[in-house]
């Protein structure tokens, strides 16, 4: 990161390639919008480059700093947008699973969770993807979301409770 702050483009490229995947997943799941997520990651990477001199290793890792930039950009973006109920795109994804019954079940499960996720708040989705996708601890998520671990526990608990209700409600009889 010190080399990036000194303007080393090769060091930045290496660092960016290591971070962009997790950033894209976080943004995509938080926003529920692929194109928006790509925009967010491009802006976050730009900030990583232009503001590299501000990075303070005593305050945490580069990954943590980048994650915080992505989360803030996602939440700012959602605040400035009119909320739209996104339609699940899972129906349109062709499955390459060998067993059609298994594929159908998997697709149904995907549709149910995507539909339920669309009804959660972006903050809840951000916490869920960091906890279940990245395996972060409550403290690490709290740092990325600029809050306390206790608040994250509450946020995740409420998110999971809402999800369960939404998924149960939509379970076909």
């Amino acid at each position, binding site marked *: 990161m010190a080399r990036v702050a000194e303007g080393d483009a090769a060091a930045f490229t290496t660092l960016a390639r290591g971070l962009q995947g997790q950033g894209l997943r976080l943004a995509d799941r938080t926003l529920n919008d692929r194109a928006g*997520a790509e925009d967010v990651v491009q802006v976050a990477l730009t900030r990583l*480059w232009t*503001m*590299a001199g501000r990075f303070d290793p005593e305050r945490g890792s580069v990954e943590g700093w980048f994650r915080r930039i992505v989360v803030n950009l996602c939440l700012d973006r959602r605040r400035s947008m009119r909320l739209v109920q996104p339609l699940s795109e899972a129906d349109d994804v062709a499955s390459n699973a060998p067993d059609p019954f298994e594929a159908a079940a998997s697709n149904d499960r*995907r549709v149910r969770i995507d539909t339920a996720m669309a009804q959660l708040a972006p903050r809840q989705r951000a916490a*869920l993807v960091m906890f*279940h996708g990245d395996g972060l601890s409550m403290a690490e998520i709290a740092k990325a979301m600029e809050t306390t671990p206790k608040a994250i526990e509450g946020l995740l*608990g409420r998110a*999971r409770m809402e999800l369960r209700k939404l*998924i149960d409600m939509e379970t076909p009889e």
Partner: protein
Amino acid sequence: VTPELALQIIESHGGDPLRWPEADRAALLALAAVDAGVGKALAEARALDAMLCDWAGDVAPATFDLAAITRTPQERAAPPRRWMAGGALAAAIAAVVVMTPMGSKVSTPSPVPSATATIEGSGGEVTRSDAEAFAEVFTPTADEEDLI
């Protein structure tokens, strides 16, 4: 670990014991084995965890224009904290505005000394000395001299 606490931990941390607080892990597992409610919540949490892991899985990669980013000029140093200079100036102006009427009130001799003047003088919060404040209170004004 009470059943209430166990349910709370399962609700927020999910069904994987490795994600639970270490201090509560063994007790929570033991409780789940004997308490039907906790056991059921644990099974449900594990089912939800599986769905969430699928949902939070990898996304298709994208290509970002890193070359364009590196052509962007970097911030060379910490940005000048202009707001601090502006804030200091605003504070100075505010102080002058606040102090001006207070100062004129103090320096203008009142025909009838007020209790406020006495309090301010004795408190030592204004620039007058205690002697000046005392003199203002106990020295008769011209009107008072006439009366005497």
